[in-house]
């Protein structure tokens, strides 16, 4: 019998009742992150069944998706003034649901409020070996710490609230080996975009990915989070990276990380969370990034991506390809470089952390966003906002003509007031370029923070390597 992979070790550690042919496993969840959009119906299901929340201490609650990113001094006044009552109702429902069920809410005014997948790691709640779920598909982000993080639906949110467990069949495993040294101006976002381009948006369906190899070892935690974050865009629900010194150094001293003797015991346990040499994976993919270029998407899913110096692929008669390029108003065989840009968005759970903001600031410093381009820079959390301001990054952004906002999901998903207008093209550091994702009729080009910043200055899609 072969050894165990990282995923199998975490899986086995959480099986309450093993699966049989007839029934799935009862699978324990260590951390449940909840936000205002995918939970109201789950809390209603609890009320209808008369069930309490089993472990409010294992629930991390915040508000991020439908929240405004303009400054708010008084929540009630701000909600009363909202033009659309539905998001306001949802935010009020979240406040009430958390109060009714005894859950601490990191709401407005909290120094710990932010995007769900940003604050978990930031406060040290995300830890190696944990199972972490949220009613949000980008829960895969937490896998960067050697946790098993995956997105769930609202019925499953109810299951976890009521029982701290899910019903699960064991997924298959997949190793993604990434080797080679990245060139300047090429980063984690380009790696994951290239990988999804190679695997396709369904290449990981049914699998949990483990990202391995020297390139991964050389990445900092924020870069690892960017990679794991977009795992779902390749169809896999979870993507994991074995914890190492980089992971421990990131977590040490964070408010919810173990302290003192508990810390030492935890690190000793975490060091075992690596795949055994003889672990067997159901599938393996290799990617050499030595010659990787910055990548940009041209179509309407993250797999429709090209190296920035290359052209949109040729038309081979595929109906989905044609529909995508027609929507994007690009032609087959045209270069993406030089395409006029209306909006640049820096933010989202993919790229809204300090290293992302610093990279953007380095490129914008002392320069001006091109005339006619609107640029939004939205920190992933209140703590990041504070830190960026401490470093003076906000001054660089605003001096360059960009808008500096309050923390939230903002323009990633078109469900708060930050939206693209019909036909507008946005170079975005977010994770999805689906039709209308950033607002009805909006056109999204996914890119790294560096590419986004370079494009903001140029007013057209631009190669960040020339802006370094």
């Amino acid at each position, binding site marked *: 019998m072969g050894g165990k992979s990282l995923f199998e070790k975490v899986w086995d550690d959480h099986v*309450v*009742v093993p699966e049989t042919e007839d029934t799935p496993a009862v699978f324990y969840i260590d951390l449940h992150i909840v936000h205002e959009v995918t939970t109201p119906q789950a809390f209603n299901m609890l009320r209808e069944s008369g069930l309490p929340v089993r472990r409010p201490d294992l629930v991390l609650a915040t508000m991020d998706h439908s929240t405004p990113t303009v400054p708010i001094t008084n929540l009630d006044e701000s909600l009363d003034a909202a033009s659309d009552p539905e998001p306001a109702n949802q935010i009020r429902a979240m406040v009430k649901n958390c109060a009714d069920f005894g859950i601490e809410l990191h709401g407005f005014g909290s120094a710990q409020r932010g995007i769900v997948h940003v604050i978990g790691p930031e406060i040290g709640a995300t830890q190696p070996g944990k199972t972490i779920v949220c009613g949000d598909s980008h829960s895969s982000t937490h896998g960067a710490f050697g946790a098993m993080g995956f997105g769930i*639906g609202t019925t*499953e949110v109810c*299951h976890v609230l009521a029982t701290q467990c899910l019903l699960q069949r064991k997924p298959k495993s997949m190793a993604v080996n990434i080797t080679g040294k990245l060139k300047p101006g090429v980063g984690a976002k380009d790696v994951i975009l290239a990988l999804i381009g190679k695997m396709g948006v369904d290449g990981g369906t*049914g699998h949990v990915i483990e990202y391995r190899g020297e390139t991964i070892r050389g990445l900092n935690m924020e870069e690892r989070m960017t990679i794991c974050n977009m795992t779902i865009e390749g169809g896999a629900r979870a993507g994991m990276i074995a914890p190492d010194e980089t992971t421990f150094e990131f977590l040490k001293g964070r408010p919810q990380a173990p302290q003192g003797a508990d810390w030492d015991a935890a690190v000793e346990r975490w060091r075992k969370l690596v795949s055994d040499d003889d672990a067997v994976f159901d599938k393996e993919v290799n990617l050499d990034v030595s010659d990787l270029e910055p990548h940009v998407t041209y179509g309407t899913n993250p*797999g429709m991506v090209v190296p920035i110096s290359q052209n949109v692929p040729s038309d081979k008669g595929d109906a989905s390809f044609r529909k995508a390029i027609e929507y994007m108003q690009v032609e087959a065989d045209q270069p993406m470089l030089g395409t006029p840009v209306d909006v640049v968005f820096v933010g989202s759970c993919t790229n809204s952390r300090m290293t992302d903001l610093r990279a953007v600031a380095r490129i914008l410093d002392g320069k001006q966003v091109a005339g006619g381009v609107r640029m939004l820079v939205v920190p992933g959390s209140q703590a990041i906002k504070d830190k960026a301001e401490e470093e003076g990054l906000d001054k660089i952004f605003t001096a360059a003509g960009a808008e500096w906002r309050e923390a939230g999901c903002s323009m990633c998903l078109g469900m708060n007031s930050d939206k693209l207008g019909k036909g507008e093209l946005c170079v975005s550091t977010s994770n*999805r370029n689906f*039709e209308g994702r950033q607002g*009805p009729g909006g056109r999204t080009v996914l890119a790294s923070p560096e590419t986004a910043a370079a494009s903001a200055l140029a007013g057209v899609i631009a190669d960040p390597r020339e802006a370094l």
Partner: protein
Amino acid sequence: MEKITQLTSTTTVLAIDDVDTDQIVPARYLTATTREGIGKALFADWRFDANGNEIADFPLNQPGAADRRILVAGRNFGCGSSREHAPWALLDFGIQAVISSEIADIFRNNSLKNGLVPVIVDTDTHQWLLDNPGAEVTVDVEARELRLPSGKTVGFPIDPFARHCMLEGVDHTGFLLQNMDNITEFEANRSWQP
């Protein structure tokens, strides 16, 4: 969940690959706090123009589509966001089964918990269904097979537990609740605590 053993209907065909859940229910419709009436949001940006008028050539707007209960979709249907609003909207519109050669994981899980039958078939059968919109087929959950107009039957995989819940018309929560003692014991005996 309503009991479902088999369903027979003509099909609506949406021959597009990688249809994501942002298309099935655009994000601006996720601000509701209940699931009632979500069917109006189904494929909102593909069904309606900017003035709210139906786009005539979209498959779900074609004559008879409102009565069809089976959707045949391109490969990798339901990718992207975890929003359960996607199966809720399909069900609210009247769709009770989705057939494709591939269905994304989270959408598939969410569907099974709501009584929307995800039917995954081989690529040849899939292509035939895409080429023949309006074909009358039967999705037999009990027999785990799809019956085509020619009389040919094609098996499809469905998790035995999810199938049991559909046939009995019970939700998945009950089974978890029956395991509360096991969960308490697990929590007490762990080698570490989260």
